[in-house]
């Protein structure tokens, strides 16, 4: 696992431009959703002292007033957010084809390889997504099993602490389920690239099999990145809290810190992808699994691993 993580860092380092692509893909939709909010804020408080005061501690009175006097914004922005989230999901999926493709086939970032890979695998990944969502819904059902078990053991009217902890258990299991679904999805996508697989059900099965047969490593890898993410988030909160004063330098510093955090967060995701890819390859090599690497006419550098 640590070897894969190390390889992942190396791959990430040699493909730094991918971060820029991902970051821009994240930033632009974000700005798109922010523009109407900015406009309404500006219209409502742009010439009020509130416009300055909000640079300091948040004013709850302002929040309620904004909600009340800007009802129009709430009929458009949630819909916009929803659409942007869906679109970003697809965009992310599209880019992941490029990421896995270029990580697999090239020792350094090559734009042509990246975009060709993104285009090549997008259709397959979309099909895969449909199957994965089915798995997700199945796993979501685990929470109902907890509810059913609670009812079976404690009846219809359990003490409140039983319901409370059962709910946390449900949430924990759901979280575990979501992590596993994403792991399966990741390894299925990797499999599709590795084997140039067109049959996504087969890739899903291989991803599923790989995730569980190497569970300590696949889960450990994800957990390691998750922990790193939490540490980075804590560090962000610590740093961001330094920029509470209502001053220009503080606001600018906060914005820089926020965006820096997002770059690191995206970097961690890419490190995870690279590490997973490395783990997949190493595991297949170790078990003597046959690797069918198809260059498929892509301009590729020799593998570095």
């Amino acid at each position, binding site marked *: 696992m640590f070897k894969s993580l190390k390889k992942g860092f190396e791959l990430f380092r040699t493909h730094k431009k991918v971060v820029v692509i991902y970051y821009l893909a994240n930033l632009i939709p974000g700005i798109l959703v922010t523009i109407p909010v900015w406009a309404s804020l500006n219209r409502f408080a742009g*010439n009020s002292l509130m416009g300055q005061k909000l*640079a300091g501690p948040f004013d709850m009175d302002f929040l309620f007033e904004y909600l009340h006097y800007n009802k129009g914004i709430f009929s458009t922005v949630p819909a916009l957010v929803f659409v942007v989230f869906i679109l970003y999901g697809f965009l992310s999926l599209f880019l992941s084809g490029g990421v896995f493709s270029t990580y697999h086939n090239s020792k350094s970032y090559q734009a042509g390889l990246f975009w060709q890979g993104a285009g090549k695998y997008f259709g397959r990944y979309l099909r895969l997504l449909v199957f994965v969502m089915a798995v997700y819904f199945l796993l979501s059902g685990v929470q109902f099993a907890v509810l059913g078990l609670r009812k079976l053991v404690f009846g219809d009217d359990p003490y*409140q602490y039983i319901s409370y902890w059962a709910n946390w258990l449900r949430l924990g299991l759901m979280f575990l389920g979501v992590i596993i679904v*994403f792991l399966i999805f990741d390894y299925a996508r990797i499999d599709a690239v590795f084997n140039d697989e067109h049959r996504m059900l087969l890739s899903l099965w291989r991803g599923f099999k790989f995730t569980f047969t190497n569970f300590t490593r696949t889960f450990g890898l994800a957990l390691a990145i998750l922990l790193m993410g939490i540490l980075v988030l804590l560090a962000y909160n610590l740093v961001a809290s330094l920029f509470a004063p209502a001053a220009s330098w503080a606001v600018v510093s906060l914005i820089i810190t926020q965006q820096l955090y997002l770059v690191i967060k995206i970097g961690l995701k890419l490190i995870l992808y690279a590490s997973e890819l490395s783990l997949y390859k190493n595991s297949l090599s170790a078990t003597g699994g046959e690797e069918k690497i198809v260059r498929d006419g892509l301009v590729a550098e020799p593998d570095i691993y």
Partner: protein
Amino acid sequence: MAGRFDFLSSLILLISLFPRFIISQPVIFDTPLSPRIANYDIDVRLDAEKSLLYGREVLSWTNKSADVISELQFHLYLNAFRNNLSTYMRESGRLYRGNIGGERGWGYIDIRRMSLISGAQEVEGLEILKTPENDLSTHYGLIDLTEQIRFIQPDDGNEHDKTVCQVTLPRSISPGQSIKLYMNFTAKLPEPPFERTGKMKEYFLVGQWFPKIGVYEADGWNTHQFHANSEFFADFGNYNVFITVPEKNIVGATGIEVEIANNEDSTRTHFYYAEDVHDFAWTTSPDFVEFNGTVQDVDIRILMQKDRAYQATRHLEAAKVAIEYYQNWYGDYPYPNLTIVDPRRRASGSAGMEYPTFFTGGTMYGLPSGIRLVEDVIVHEFGHNYFYHMLASNEFEESWLDEGITTYTQTRIMNDAYGPQGDFIDFFGIRLNGLQRQRAEYIFWPDQDQTVRKAWEYYSGHSYAISSYSKPTLFLTTLQNYLGREIMFEIMQSYLGRWRFKHPQTQDFVDVANEVSGQNLNWFFQQALYSNAVLDYAVSSAISREMKPEKGYGFTLSTDDKREMVISRDDSSAMKNPDTSLSDSSALDEIAEEKILYYSEIKVRRLGDFVFPVELLMTFEDGEEIREVWDGQELWKKYVYIRPAKLVSATVDPDRKILLDVNFTNNSRTVEAQKLGLLKLSARWLFGIQFLMEQPELVALLSGFTGF
């Protein structure tokens, strides 16, 4: 003699029949605190499985009016839950706190027998209750009135509503005369608890459960039907109540527990006694865990549910805060004890309800300490021991007098004890004060109703809540800021002192406020209480520009530092400049040559109908601040300044004293746009969106989880 013999023999008989108590009438207060008009002796037995109450009641009632009274009126509140045709059910749509009325069991109350006790008036109700039903007539000369009972619907004429009844007496009651009535009743409690009374499994919160006499006022009986948006109104008295429940049950009730007796049928009878109260409620459950504490000579008893017993300390601490603040601020809580009940899970319909010396709280397992719901509810409900209980205003007709004043005091206490920021919520960086919460509710619907209305005549339940809780909290806080904290304290203390154990009305509060403040505040109360006028002052325009040297015919001002000119709507054609005088134009040229002057113009508007004097603060680039006071009468007012520094901003009510103002954001205006805060807010929004987009696992988790 015969009468005395009957009395003695019946006493002997009673003692032999009811050996469970050797009763001597307890006394709490040496001197009565209240007029003690309606006194009740009740013996009630709970059939826990059937949710039935079998009760016998002796009412001793005194005609304190100047009228000769020939009929009595009674509340039969539980009949609100009798069927879906009652006025309550019609008004509420059978919905209360997520429960559906009658879903698992309707409630009702039937008077099986009502009799006038014609003989032995001097006998205590306690003694009468000990007499077997069949022997009552023999001993006490009962005149049966059961056939005389008629249901009336004084509020809406809904013939299906059986929450008020009237009975004609065989003989009239003269002023000052007392009567005794004997009643035998059966009541069924709704399940789950609805509108603060009812049953959930083995938990019972028993409120509004016995035939209760109305209040006779100068213009007759005041006995309203049970409505969806109203609470109660009653006269003070003493209560002797025997409550028989399964022996495993713990009981809590209004007043003090005098004695517990074990019965042969696996039940126990708890004898409670209360003096100078106007209602009696009780609770019972085998699942209660009891905790006790004392603060300022008040014994606090907390009945927690087993699954939330770990929160007992939190409840106790909140109760201590409430008692200490109320006693220190408003005066003595005269009762020796206080009982706080934690309602059972799935019995939220009984949560957060006040009764004399007894109330229910509201919490849930796992409630974080930073979300001060427990504290908020306890401080509020305890406050009702003052405003509702000791000052027994009519909750049907003037709900702001109890709910509004209590909530106002509650926000003050919460802020003092847990503030200044986040006194209600201080959790994960979110800080919300109770006052902000009240204002948040108010600003969304500030004008649906005037404050003072009959509870069932408000536009909606929401409007009732805003008019009864939020708006009074805000206008009383506004008044406090206007008059000063100390004067407001004096007003509240005088109001309490003058009206303890009476039935104050809105005008009584206004009179006290006028008298104590030494001002005629009718202009304020007229708007706050009897209109739906909205208060919104705004700075609509603020400009500041460098002055050019005058050309042509013009006028200028003296060299005096003060150069304010004021134009108001009623005289906008003339520029008034009370502090300065006109001089020739050469003076301006001289000034202009010496230093740059700025012409600053501010327009302030009254956007709502509520008129209130406001302060204004003008800030200039050189740091100078000018404060003005505008009486706020006109629709707008213009302020003009010619100063050596440019205007930065103008603010109405800069210290946010006027909590009634529905829009603080428009209270200020800057000459230059102020974007820094908006930039920060937008950046946070952008960051949140970016973060969530990059966190599909979290989105999947939240969208898939069915919630707590």
